[in-house]
């Protein structure tokens, strides 16, 4: 065969190195959707003098953060080749449980309330025994129900082998139904002495930057590290790339799948809690059909529903693009009903451009 001493380094005679613009972000859907977004921002700047004002930017940042955290979660699932349709319902249910637990714990005289609150000297004002504790417990409760729903999704899909589409479609209905059951269809409101902390932590801002946006940036950075620098992240990509191969190489496929559905449910739960802080309540029909926006944003940003491709940057770019379009239509005084139509066109366009690009290579 090739007469070459063992010590000599390999020389690449017949394989050209792939050019920098043909790999990484430059060759991805995320890359050119980002480019499209930049172009759109420039157009918006010239189309409307209000677009690049501080107020509008804050508004845009806040609005896309409202779906972007859930999009990060669903991106994990999409990378493994799955789908989670229950995110919208999950947002509502977590938010509802959080505000119900908060209200319950803040009621003096209730069995649990005694541990957390006492009456002030005037006999009317309710004071917290430990400031912030009620908030903490209620958020943990809200995320707890999301965790359980995520575990059920993951168990059905990874262990019982049900299809992700059907399982999470069922979970969409189950969780939404449970929301109506626990609230009697009325929804719930955050209340009690910790409500101010709650609003500050969900819809406030730090030095003019909306809090949800800060959470989003932290979570996106964490996600980037997890996906690209841990073995869990690598296994997530491997499952989406070739599930059979992943199993044959001995990676714990069942565990990884359960974990991604739990991550997705937790992200949706957190997202719901944040939205309820902005709304000031958790109505029973909150976040209805948000799963479609979330999945659309992920797909526009370059996550491939066939699995194996996706990332936090793409998820955020997708959300920003959707929000800028929505915002732009409002500023341009176009009927907001056009938004949904345009979103659909963009989804198809983004996937189409990706198809054309991969044909050309």
């Amino acid at each position, binding site marked *: *065969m090739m007469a070459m001493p063992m010590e000599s*380094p*390999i020389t690449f005679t*017949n394989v050209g190195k*792939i050019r920098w613009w043909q790999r990484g972000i430059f060759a991805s859907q995320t890359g050119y959707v980002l480019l499209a977004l930049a172009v759109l921002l420039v157009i918006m700047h010239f189309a409307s003098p209000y677009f690049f004002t501080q107020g509008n930017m804050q508004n845009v940042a806040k609005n896309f953060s409202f779906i972007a955290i859930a999009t990060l979660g669903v991106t994990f699932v999409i990378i493994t080749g799955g789908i989670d349709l229950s995110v919208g319902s999950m947002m509502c249910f977590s938010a509802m449980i959080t505000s119900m637990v908060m209200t319950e714990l803040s009621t003096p005289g209730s069995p649990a309330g005694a541990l957390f609150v006492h009456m002030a000297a005037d006999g009317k004002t309710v004071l917290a025994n430990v400031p912030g504790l009620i908030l903490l417990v209620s958020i943990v409760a809200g995320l707890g129900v999301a965790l359980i729903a995520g575990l059920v999704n993951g168990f059905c899909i990874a262990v019982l082998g049900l299809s992700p589409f059907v399982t999470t479609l069922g979970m969409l209905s189950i969780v939404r139904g449970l929301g109506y059951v626990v609230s009697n269809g009325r929804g719930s409101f955050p209340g009690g002495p910790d409500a101010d902390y709650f609003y500050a932590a969900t819809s406030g801002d730090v030095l003019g930057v909306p809090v949800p946006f800060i959470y989003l940036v932290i979570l996106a950075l964490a996600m980037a590290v997890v996906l690209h620098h841990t073995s869990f992240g690598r296994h997530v990509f*491997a499952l989406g*790339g070739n599930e*059979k191969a992943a199993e044959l*190489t001995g990676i714990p496929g069942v565990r990884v799948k359960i974990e991604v559905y739990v991550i997705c449910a937790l992200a949706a739960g957190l997202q719901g809690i944040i939205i309820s802080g902005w709304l000031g309540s958790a109505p029973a029909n909150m976040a209805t059909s948000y799963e479609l926006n979330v999945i659309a944003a992920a797909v526009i940003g370059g996550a491939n529903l066939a699995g194996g491709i996706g990332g936090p940057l793409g998820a955020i770019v997708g959300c920003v693009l959707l929000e800028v379009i929505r915002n732009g239509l409002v500023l341009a005084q176009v009927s907001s009903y056009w938004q949904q139509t345009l979103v659909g066109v963009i989804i198809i366009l983004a996937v189409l451009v990706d198809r054309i690009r991969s044909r050309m290579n």
Partner: protein
Amino acid sequence: MAKTDATPVLELTGIGKEFGAIRALHDVDMQVCPGEVVGLMGDNGAGKSTLVKIIAGNFRPTHGEIRFAGSTVHFNRPVDARAVGIEVVYQDLALSDNLTAAANVFLGRELKRKFGPIALLDHKAMAARALELFGELRSETRPDDLVKQMSGGQRQAVAIARTRLSNARLVMMDEPTAAISVRQVEQVLGLIHRLKEQGVAVMLISHRMPDVFAVCDRVIVMRRGEKRADKPIHETSPEEVTALITGAKEAA
């Protein structure tokens, strides 16, 4: 091949497998020595894949005994077989297209560095080790290239590098030359020579007569669940092997 004095890495005695009333394998004895390349041939349904699956731990044999490096072993799952040093390179190669060559080589046994409680992937070390393995296999494969951009021969190299990583002592290759170009077949046969040089025993399951005669030291022919021939390659001919596979000649 000076193999008579070495302990066989794999020794099967009286292996039989029944699926209900169907007898898939009957009384198969065979040995594979370190550094030996054994061709396993037979028509579809001859029992080749059942035999491979028994050795790889996918099935348990109904009868018989498997000895690995001198001691009796029982495999319940493929992981058990891998633990003692048996690796299978599957026909579809079991690679993740969306990952790099290095990521595929290390899939499921990533190298990590500890940062306090967090263990992060050690990309540099994995790329360096993968490059070293590709060097040993003399394959022109870049560790950072995505597998989907690779040729069939390079993909084989990645799959084989996986087996080198775990220091496998027996590598079974299922039809490695079935779906690739002539030039790449040369590369794959070269890879098999590299494994042999390093004292790894190789079982080559193949339909392609020229490949078997090019690299194997010995050929085993299966027919209707039984071993019909087990001969050093220089004592037989493609014509005889064909006759044994088709049943024109009963046994040799």
